[in-house]
């Protein structure tokens, strides 16, 4: 780098930093004047210049300053943590959110609360650190130490889903004990003292200083492991050190305010836009400043729009997540296409398998498909035996048992059909996007469906099954069109599609949270249940839409299995072979979207099935979609059915929503697959 370049760069750094500091000062000033008491801007200004009345001083001391300091701490911690993680992983999508560190820390804190362990704050922070570190170690370890591959985000998302599911499960099971935690789970700044902030500040300061001190090493690390080793860097030690520090920062933030979403993702991204060639000693602190602007700005805007009294209900993290999602979408649209770098979907691919193996697998699946639903009918809070089932089929059971089985049948059917629909949908989406991470959940389709349904339930509390299914379908369509439209830029880049999908998914989930806390804050349990995917209270009527979609669209996708194969190869081959690529893609995505939306209307928002079932199918019967589609459908049906049966049985009479069981049962399997295929 020559002097001519460095000088403007230094000036630019100075200007940007100064601008950020001024912006933070202005935001902090506004922030102090906002609040639920009558102490207005004028009172605050007087108080700052030493002429405040006692009431204003108390309000500043007891409420506004703690909130401001919490926001500052969070912004710095998450901004720096995000920048550090992106460097360690060499992946602009790495962040406390996508590496599941936030989720790990949050889970640890909720677990402590749910089990009634009332610990002083530092151990809570310690637990958050342990949870976050465990998540980071698992994610980075399975992703092969981190690289630019989408594998990192893939593993991170899987672990994130599992942790979120267990966390939601705890919130459900300990409804009364954890009722304050629902909003907190999205990151709340309503702090009433400086204890948490005060105890976490030293940790944040030490971690930030240490990370900045490591700046030059991180610069070298950015050149790649081999180059860094050649240059004499102890790569492993540097990486471990940086991970521990970034996790400590994230855990401190979670301990203070819960998981404030996407600050760690968007802050470094914005910083790199402002200072494109900044080294780490600049990048890290400036990311911290941008993080502060994000958190503070979100809080200021939220309270300015809603009014401070109403804004109390809305977690600040909801707003930062939506802001972060917008940044992510913009980033994805701005970035160049990813070119030809495209690994095959994870899972043991290529074992095309002998005829014998194929026949055997088919036979096992057929047997299981016959047995599992029967077992599903037999198990539950009340066990029934085959003789009962025989009586029931022939109409000879007593009223009580007839009723039990009558209401169990739609649940079993809903699980089977929705599982199959999600799996087929996942096949289509993974093929077209050529991305192992893609699935209807992570493309925002299920969140869109959920948003549609929840919106309708909010407006019309007694909406019928068909209306809810319709609203879910409409929501899914709108979100799907949004994702597709945003990802479309003179062609559809598959990486872009998935990144935008994840962004929209996060924003959708944040909006659902917003809708619940604003409209029905005292009924979070019901919303959580619905959102986490449950067959509870299903009727046969509600199963019809998904059945129709499955019957109509699975054969369609199966007939197109050669197109699916070609899409999964690369961008050029299908074109060379004369396929009308866009039309085919839209058709496949459309069919996949409809399947996912009907599945949501049948059992709620269930993620993971569309991810796991195609992977599992591929590892069983190889990479050809003529085989994958039916096998994945069978596996998806089995997976959800087993999960539903377990959820209805293990802690009866209480029930675990099927979607949560899937994430908990599916994740270990998924991690196993990833472990076996690690580079």
């Amino acid at each position, binding site marked *: 780098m020559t002097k001519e370049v460095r000088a403007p760069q230094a000036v630019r750094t100075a200007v940007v930093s100064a601008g950020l500091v001024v912006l933070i000062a202005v935001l902090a000033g506004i922030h102090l004047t906002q609040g639920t008491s009558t102490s207005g801007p004028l009172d605050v200004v007087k108080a700052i210049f030493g002429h405040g009345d006692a009431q204003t001083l108390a309000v500043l001391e007891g409420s506004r300053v703690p909130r401001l300091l919490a926001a500052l701490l969070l912004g710095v911690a998450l901004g720096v943590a995000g920048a550090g993680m992106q460097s360690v992983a060499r992946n602009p999508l790495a962040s406390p959110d996508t590496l599941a560190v936030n989720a790990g820390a949050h889970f640890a804190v909720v677990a402590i609360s749910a089990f009634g362990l009332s610990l002083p704050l530092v151990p809570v922070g310690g637990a958050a650190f342990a949870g976050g570190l465990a998540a980071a170690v698992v994610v980075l370890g399975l992703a092969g130490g981190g690289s630019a591959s989408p594998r990192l985000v893939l593993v991170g998302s899987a672990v994130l889903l599992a942790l979120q599911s267990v966390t939601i499960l705890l919130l459900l099971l300990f409804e009364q*004990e954890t009722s304050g935690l629902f909003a907190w789970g999205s990151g709340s700044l309503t*702090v009433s*003292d400086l204890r948490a902030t005060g105890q976490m500040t030293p940790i944040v300061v030490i971690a930030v200083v240490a990370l900045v001190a490591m700046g030059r090493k991180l610069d070298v690390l950015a050149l790649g492991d081999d180059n860094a080793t050649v240059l004499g860097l102890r790569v492993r030690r540097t990486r471990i050190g940086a991970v521990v520090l970034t996790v400590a920062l994230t855990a401190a933030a979670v301990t*203070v305010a819960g998981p404030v979403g996407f600050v760690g993702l968007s802050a470094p991204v914005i910083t790199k836009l402002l200072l494109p060639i900044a080294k780490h000693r600049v990048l890290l602190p400036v990311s911290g400043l941008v993080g502060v602007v994000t958190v503070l700005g979100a809080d200021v805007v939220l309270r300015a729009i809603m009014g401070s009294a109403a804004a109390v209900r809305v977690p600040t993290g909801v707003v930062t997540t939506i802001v972060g999602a917008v940044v992510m979408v913009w980033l994805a649209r701005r970035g160049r296409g990813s070119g030809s770098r495209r690994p095959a979907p994870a899972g043991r691919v290529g074992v095309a398998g002998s005829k014998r193996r194929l026949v055997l697998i088919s036979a096992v699946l057929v047997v299981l498909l016959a047995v599992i639903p029967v077992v599903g009918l037999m198990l539950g809070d009340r066990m029934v035996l085959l003789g*009962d089932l025989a009586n029931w089929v022939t109409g000879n059971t007593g009223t009580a048992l007839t009723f039990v089985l009558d209401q169990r049948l739609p649940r079993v059917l809903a699980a089977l059909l929705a599982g199959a629909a999600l799996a087929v949908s996942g096949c289509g989406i993974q093929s077209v996007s050529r991305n192992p991470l893609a699935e209807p959940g992570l493309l925002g389709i299920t969140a869109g469906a959920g948003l549609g349904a929840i919106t309708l339930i909010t407006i019309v509390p007694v909406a019928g099954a068909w209306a809810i299914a319709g609203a879910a379908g409409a929501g899914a369509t709108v979100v799907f069109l949004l994702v597709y439209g945003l990802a479309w830029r003179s062609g559809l880049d598959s990486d872009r599609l998935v990144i935008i999908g994840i962004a929209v998914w996060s924003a959708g989930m944040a909006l659902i949270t917003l809708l619940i806390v604003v409209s029905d804050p005292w009924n979070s349990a019901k919303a959580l249940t619905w959102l986490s995917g449950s067959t509870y209270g299903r009727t046969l009527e509600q199963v019809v839409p998904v059945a129709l979609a499955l019957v109509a669209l699975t054969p369609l996708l199966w007939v197109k299995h050669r197109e699916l194969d070609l899409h999964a190869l690369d961008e050029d081959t299908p074109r060379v072979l004369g396929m009308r690529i866009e039309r085919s893609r839209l058709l496949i995505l459309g069919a996949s979207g409809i399947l996912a939306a009907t599945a949501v209307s049948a059992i709620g928002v269930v993620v993971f099935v569309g991810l796991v079932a195609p992977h599992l199918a591929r590892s069983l019967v190889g990479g050809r979609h003529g085989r994958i589609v039916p096998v994945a459908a069978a596996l998806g049906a089995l997976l959800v059915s087993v999960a539903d049966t377990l959820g209805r049985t293990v802690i009866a*009479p209480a*029930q675990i929503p099927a979607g949560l069981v899937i994430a908990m049962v599916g994740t270990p399997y998924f991690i196993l697959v990833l472990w076996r295929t690690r580079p």
Partner: protein
Amino acid sequence: MRLLTPAVLVATAALLLSACGTTENTAAAPSEAAATGPVTVTDARGKAVNLKAPAKRVVALEWGEAEMVASLGVMPVGAADVAGYNVWDKAVPLTAEVKDVGKRNEPSVDAIVGLNPDVVIIAEERDSPLVPQIEKYVPVVVTKTSDASRNFDRLREDFKLIAKTVGKEAEADKQLSEMDAKLAEGKKAVEGKGAAGTPFLMADAYLEGSTVSIRPFGKGSLVSDTAEAVGLKNVWTGQVDPQWGLGQTDVEGLTAITDPKTVLIYSASEEDVFTTGLAQNAVYQRLPFVVSKKIHKLESGTWTFGGPKSIIFTADQIVKAITA
């Protein structure tokens, strides 16, 4: 895979063989013959529900309703989250015989039906898919559970509805007049102390680390109606929801309360947020009821969404606190 397949087949076969037979005792004893004639009640949906006889075996899925049933001398055969109930509602404890039918948000249909109830009492708007489903098998009576525009009248209606369902109308009238007498007596005691019109704030709160959310019970909430019935005056004027009359705020929001005579009454069956979480807070310390030390914690197990017994329990404590 090679090992897995035979294993799965063997396990399946074993399962199938062991699972033959039936669980049903086909000669299940029907409920004993009706002592009194059939009853018809019109529930909160406006639907006429016909019972062959006053219900003896009752399943109640919300705590307030379970309390009402039990207080009428009919111990429910099943209730949702019995353990939680006994922590949060000690006015009328449920006995160990009451079967837990699962969590309040998703009670187990199997468990409900397995109890062979005469009637299931469900609160309106909670678990809406449940009502039509259960109704296919057993009569369902839907209660209103809370209505912030007329909570006492609503409570009377719910209580009488339940009483008619279980054939205890006389007992219900007795308890309602007992409740009225208690409230009137309380009002008199409050007036006697010259404390009529004492302003009060009623709230509960949640604490997570340093994050505190406070839930004020606004005008129209059941406990607010109770306190007003004994002559106090609710000072919380912030926005509340139309069903429960609950608001939400932070510690700073409490500064809206300026009347120095204000009394704080709070509910905490588990964590005591007001004394543990807020005591050191500068805003909290300046609040009128903190300065004057007029703070009263309702006993653990005072259910703020209960029936007449809970009202009496709550009113007693409030009156005692104000007149002490």
